[in-house]
Structure formats: C-alpha cells, structure tokens
C-alpha cells in the first residue's frame, strides 16, 4: 500500500497496483522515494478522492478486455466525468500533475465537449484566461473567418 497526503493534510491508502498508473508516483516508487507518505501539495482531498476512485476502477484494465468488462469500464468513465466544471478542472490539473495518461485523455475530451460551443467570453471565464489581444487584433481574426463566429449553437453560459 502507498500513502498519499492531500494539501489539506488528509491521508489516503492506495494499492500500489492502482497508484502506479500515475507515472509520477511510479517513478518515485522505482527511485525509492516513496517509503512513507507521499505529499501532494497541489491536490485537495476532494479531488484526490475522485482520482483514487478512478485509479481503483482502472486497476485491472488489462484484465477487463479478457473478462468482457469493457462496457462496465466505459459506463464508469461516462459517469465519472459527469461532474461540475470546477471539479473537472481540478481533476485535470491533478491528472496532469500526477501524469495519469488515460485520466487526462478522458477528462480533456469531456472538457472539450463542454467548451466546443461556448462563446469566447464564456471560455475565457471557464479557463480563467485574461484576454491579451487588442480590439483590432480580435476583429482581424473574426474578419478572417466570419463563419466560425456565427451559428445558433454559440452558448454564453459558463457551466
């Protein structure tokens, strides 16, 4: 078992087979740096619980193909990303920090699905980006491809 500690000082025990899906922790274990508790200063306990839930479910991913549990896993993934935007954003940041490739792919795809029809203003707010383009530069981009800025599907909400 490997012990992980969130930035709000909560400890979680995870099976080694599950936790090594994180390239970062796998490297730490291989280098002998994971003898006691691994502190994760960038991840809060709420997000870490989600990540561990994913790791535990995907522990036997290789076996799933043999036992026909692929559908079960797919269903789990669909349910897993069914969370609020802020929560998903935190899981993406954690998955990126821990370097968990499959979780990254799953969450980034879900994030893109939510962003794709958003307005520019909504995306800036959702990704916490400050606009650094001048009005002229912005207008030039719009003039370049006006068709990309039209359409009834463009959505200005931020969730």
């Amino acid at each position, binding site marked *: 078992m490997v012990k992980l500690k969130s930035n709000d000082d909560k400890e979680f025990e995870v099976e080694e087979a599950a936790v090594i899906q994180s390239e970062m922790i796998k490297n730490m274990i291989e280098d002998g740096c994971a003898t006691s508790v691994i502190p994760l200063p960038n991840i809060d306990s709420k997000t870490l619980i989600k990540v561990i839930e994913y790791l535990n479910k995907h522990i036997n991913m290789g076996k799933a193909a043999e036992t026909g549990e692929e559908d079960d896993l797919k269903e789990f993934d669909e349910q897993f990303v069914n969370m609020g935007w802020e929560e998903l*954003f935190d899981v*993406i*940041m954690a998955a*990126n920090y821990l370097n968990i490739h499959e979780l*990254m792919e799953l969450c*980034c*795809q879900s*994030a*893109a*699905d939510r*962003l*794709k*029809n958003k307005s*520019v203003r909504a*995306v*800036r707010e959702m*990704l*916490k*980006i*400050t*606009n*650094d*383009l001048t009005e002229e*530069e*912005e207008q030039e*981009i*719009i003039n370049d*491809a006006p*068709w*990309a*800025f039209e*359409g009834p599907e*463009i959505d200005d909400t931020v969730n």
Partner: protein
Amino acid sequence: MKPTIPQELIFKIFSWLPTKSLIHFKCIFKFCNSLVLESAFMGVHQCRSITHMDGKKFFIWQHKDYYTIEEKEEGKASCLRIENCSENLLYDHIICVNGLFCCSMKYEECVPIRNPSKKVVTYLPRFIVFAKIGYPGYFY
C-alpha cells in the same frame, strides 16, 4: 484564487475540439491564436480527427462549395464550409489521409492537397501520366 491554466493543458484540451471551435477560440488570447497554426498542434488535432469516434471527417462537394463533414453520433453530422475552395469542378478522385484531402481531376497535371483545417491548398509537383498504366495511383 485558482491558478491560471497552464498552456500545455490548453493544448491538450483544445486538441479534442472540432475545427470550427478552434477557429472561433483564436480570439480568446494570443496563445490560442498562434496555437491553432502550430504544426505540433495541427498534427495532434488531425490525428484525433481521424481516430476519434466523434471527429470522423468527410469531404464533400455541393452547390459549388466544398465542405468537411464531421460525424458526431450515428446519423448526425456537422457541416463546415471551406472558403476559397469553391471552384466548380467535379473531382475524379478524393483521398483523405490524416485530415488532408487530395482531390484530382483525371487530366489535371498538378494534384492539389487540401488542408481543410488550415484552409491551405498545396500542389504536388507535376507528374507524368503513362498512357498504358492509365490513372496514376497515390502513395502515402
């Protein structure tokens, strides 16, 4: 206050976006504007467009205009017009590789390679048509 999103994460998330959203999001900030034209990003994006079940691309011609079709779910698709690509030609051959479309007329000497994401057309060097072989094949 939450930390700002690192640029590598924008890269990773945006690589899943359909082309229209990418062009639209060039307006978000300078990084997005340059990202869309970056070759590393285009590579990842096109690769996904072909392999990703939501992004299967087709290339069609209708009423003098060319479109890419992105298949979303079964039976549903979104249509995107390719600008500056409206010559009234009916192509004999259309082949799609990694998001690029190669369309040619039987007797056209220079074969155009079209990139609908970038809206760029590149012409292959002239090739010689051997009468006995008939129509030249494509190699990629």
